[in-house]
């Protein structure tokens, strides 16, 4: 026998698209048509319209003014603060979350699943809820203020800690997901070659983790750089990020030109970060030998690992569990002792000419309705986009991929305001239509849907579809019979994420939600912005309700989550 190995005819494997190329390309472009049209009409058009309106001056362009505005001392100050708080938040998040990533990836202990769920919930909590929770913990009249007179809401620490709260899950999911799949025998091999425990980790594991570390860091940086709700609530007059400043310039000062320049600044910064991210992700796709996460975890051994586990537990309790717990506590803490007064008040219209024309509780129904519609749009548009992107091919497709991520980085405030000024005339007069809010929210949901669906779709072996075709299934039928059953769970998870982020969307919604139809985050923010114990208590109560809905949605979906997608989000 000359060849005893099973043959792999790599010519066939490497080039299956060649034979079906013309039809495949046509199908892919057809699939891309809807997402591209959606982004053109509901993203590119509003954003470019408002930016160009801001930059137009007396009938002409004035590039000099962009520079003049961008170099104004107050703007430079905002830019500086935005950048350094994002860097500090990122560093702090990595510092606090990496031990958590290790513990959840490599240690097997009772309550592991619970801990995993607990650290994930904050990520889908609305920014407004996080802001309210930290206000309840470290703000004026907050728990620490009551107990020891400690207040952090006048310092930057409140913002930084809230950012850590939010992004802890990003690091645990992205880095921990990979860590759990790294083959421990690699490190063992290094140990056998004479490396100490730390040297083995540094020389073998750390380099393998580096791309995912960088990806996580960039993602945290991106989220904190564009932070709006948290800073709006916790920043006070002292601390302003670009996004908050855009809101202030647009809504309070009606200074469109300055807002437009700020939008461009943020866009440029985010574009740079995304480009770097794309490079890193592509490099990450180059082969690491991965193993089943089920085989890499072990019981904690020795004092050091138990200590680490305890430390992570304490961090999670203090940082991730305390703020929501205090939020709930404050919502029940009425002047007459603990009770449901604030919740009851949500059902009434404030007779003293308060913030609402309707009982605040109606925001719950509004939010759920909007979020459901936004989820439907996100899943449809995002699902089509992911299907079009399934085959990695061509620069055009990669550009399309990047385009889908842009809404994460463009000022939501700009998008919201852009909606108002562009979608107000026929044929697209949506200003008075309820659909405006879900459309804006869907823009944030779509990137999540794509990110969650894509790895799963790409994991479906092309030859399974071919097997179905040879057995008589048409392409559509093959998709239904082969792809759909395999991606159904991912589709549910994607829908859940889209639902949660739509529910919490604040920056765009605050502009376009009508006063008589506020969403939950808008209502919470409005209540927090008004003085008085009753407003504060109602804000806490409403934020608690919002938190409960989001957490329930996520925990429900955690049960459907396919294990293999743990690498993204």
């Amino acid at each position, binding site marked *: *026998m*000359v*060849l005893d190995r*099973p*043959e*792999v*005819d*790599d*010519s*066939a494997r*490497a*080039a*299956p698209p*060649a*034979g*079906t190329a013309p039809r495949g390309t046509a199908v892919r472009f057809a699939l891309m048509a809807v997402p591209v049209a959606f982004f053109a009409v509901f993203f590119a058009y509003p954003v470019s319209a408002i930016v160009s309106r801001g930059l137009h001056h007396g009938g002409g362009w004035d590039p000099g003014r962009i520079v003049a505005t961008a170099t104004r001392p107050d703007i430079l100050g905002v830019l500086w603060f935005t950048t350094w708080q994002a860097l500090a938040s990122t560093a702090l998040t990595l510092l606090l979350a990496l031990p958590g990533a290790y513990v959840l990836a490599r240690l097997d202990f009772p309550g592991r699943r619970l801990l995993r769920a607990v650290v994930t919930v904050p990520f889908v909590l609305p920014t407004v809820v996080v802001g309210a929770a930290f206000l309840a913990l470290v703000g004026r009249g907050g728990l620490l203020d009551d107990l020891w007179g400690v207040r952090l809401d006048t310092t930057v620490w409140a913002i930084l800690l809230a950012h850590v709260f939010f992004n802890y899950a990003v690091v645990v999911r992205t880095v921990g997901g990979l860590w759990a799949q790294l083959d421990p025998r690699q490190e063992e091999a290094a140990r056998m070659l004479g490396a100490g425990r730390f040297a083995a980790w540094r020389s073998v594991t750390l380099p393998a983790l580096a791309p995912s570390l960088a990806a996580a860091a960039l993602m945290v940086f991106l989220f904190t750089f564009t932070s709006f709700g948290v800073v709006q609530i916790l920043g006070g007059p002292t601390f302003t990020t670009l996004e908050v400043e855009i809101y202030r310039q647009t809504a309070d000062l009606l200074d469109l030109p300055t807002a437009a320049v700020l939008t461009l600044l943020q866009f440029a910064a985010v574009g740079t970060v995304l480009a770097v991210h794309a490079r890193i992700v592509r490099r990450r796709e180059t082969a690491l030998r991965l193993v089943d996460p089920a085989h890499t975890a072990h019981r904690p051994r020795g004092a050091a690992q138990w200590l680490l586990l305890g430390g992570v537990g304490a961090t999670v309790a203090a940082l991730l569990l305390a703020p929501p717990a205090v939020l709930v506590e404050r919502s029940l803490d009425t002047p007459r002792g603990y009770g449901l007064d604030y919740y009851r008040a949500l059902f009434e219209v404030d007779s003293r000419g308060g913030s609402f024309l309707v009982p605040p509780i109606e925001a719950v129904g509004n939010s759920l309705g909007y979020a459901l519609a936004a989820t439907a749009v996100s899943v449809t548009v995002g699902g089509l986009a992911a299907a079009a992107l399934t085959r990695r091919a061509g620069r055009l497709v990669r550009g399309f991929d990047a385009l889908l991520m842009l809404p994460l980085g463009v000022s939501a405030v700009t998008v919201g305001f852009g909606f108002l000024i562009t979608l107000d005339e026929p044929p697209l007069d949506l200003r008075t239509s309820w659909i405006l809010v879900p459309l804006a929210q869907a823009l944030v949901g779509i990137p999540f849907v794509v990110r969650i669906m894509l790895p799963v779709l790409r994991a479906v*072996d092309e*030859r*399974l579809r*071919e*097997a*179905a*075709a*040879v*057995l*008589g*299934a*048409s*392409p559509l*039928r*093959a998709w239904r*019979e*082969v792809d759909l*059953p*395999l991606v159904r769970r991912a589709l549910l998870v994607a829908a859940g994420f889209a639902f949660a982020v739509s529910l919490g969307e604040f920056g765009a919604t605050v502009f376009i939600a009508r006063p008589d139809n506020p969403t939950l985050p808008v209502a919470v923010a409005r209540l927090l912005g008004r003085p008085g114990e009753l407003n504060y208590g109602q804000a806490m109560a409403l934020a608690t309700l919002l938190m409960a809905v989001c957490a329930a949605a996520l925990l429900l979906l955690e049960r459907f989550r396919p294990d293999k997608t743990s690498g993204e989000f």
Partner: protein
Amino acid sequence: MALLRLEDVGVRFGGRAALDGVDLEVPEHRTVCVLGPSGSGKSTLLRVVAGLQRADRGRVLLAGADQAGVPPHRRGVGLMFQDHQLFPQRDVAGNVAFGLRMRGAGREERARRVGELLELVGLPGAQRRAVPTLSGGEQQRVALARALAPEPKLLMLDEPLGQLDRGLRERLVTELRGLFGRLGTTVLAVTHDQGEAFALADRVVVMRDGRVAQSGTPLEVWQRPASRFVARFLGFDNLADCTVSGTRADTPWGAVEVPAGAPQGEGTLLVRPSGVRVGPEGEGLAATVEARTFRAGRVAVRLRPDAGPGLEADCALGEVPPEGARVGLRFGVGETVVLDRA
């Protein structure tokens, strides 16, 4: 009449020709095996027939009808994939019934056929088993049942037994041959394993670099490899350049007697291992024993002659000289073949 006919089929991937002017016929109720090393274009050939890969030139005819533009699901051919490609989310019955469902067979008919087929492939009662719980051999059988279920005109097998261990492979080859004979199935199989091809096929087609290097019955191919490449691929290593005149061939090993009617002039001499007779030193070609490999009762002996390329001899267990021994070699006339020089 030929059920499948390929005329001058060519496929290029970039600058490389995966198939380069292939002509091939598979008569009805026959089994044809395409044999060749990695990258010789065998799998591509099957994909072209299945419609999964478009041919850049040439025609594929099934029962006389040109298949250009006919999508895979309308060709009515079956393909058993190299690594089975069972649908992981369906159980055994769901996999086997898939093709029947696609052609709209009713529930009862499907259940009946699935039962029959699982019986046929030796897995009775396996309907409800999940795919991941099956062993390699069982997956193999399920994949076969799934491919057979819609009663394809032509059944194609891509390395049908490639991933199984040797014992199972040999048993399954015999079973498959019997099964195809009983069902009258027309089969086109590709494999890199000569033994498998020999046992399974009515005709063998040897491929090299996208071209047909030789085709014929297994016996023809084994007895008279068309070229040095085919001979080497079939496992014959006793090859040397030669010049033939009459029944005498001049080789680096000296003069060797060849059968009457051998092609005259320049050629390649092949001596089958069974034709290398190992005798005491001083008789015939002097050589040294280099290595010995045991093969179920016989021993392959590697020899280093004093002149000419190395030789392999097939010895009975009792007659094996020790390693390092000096021996003399003679060649049996019936076991020598003169091939083209190429």
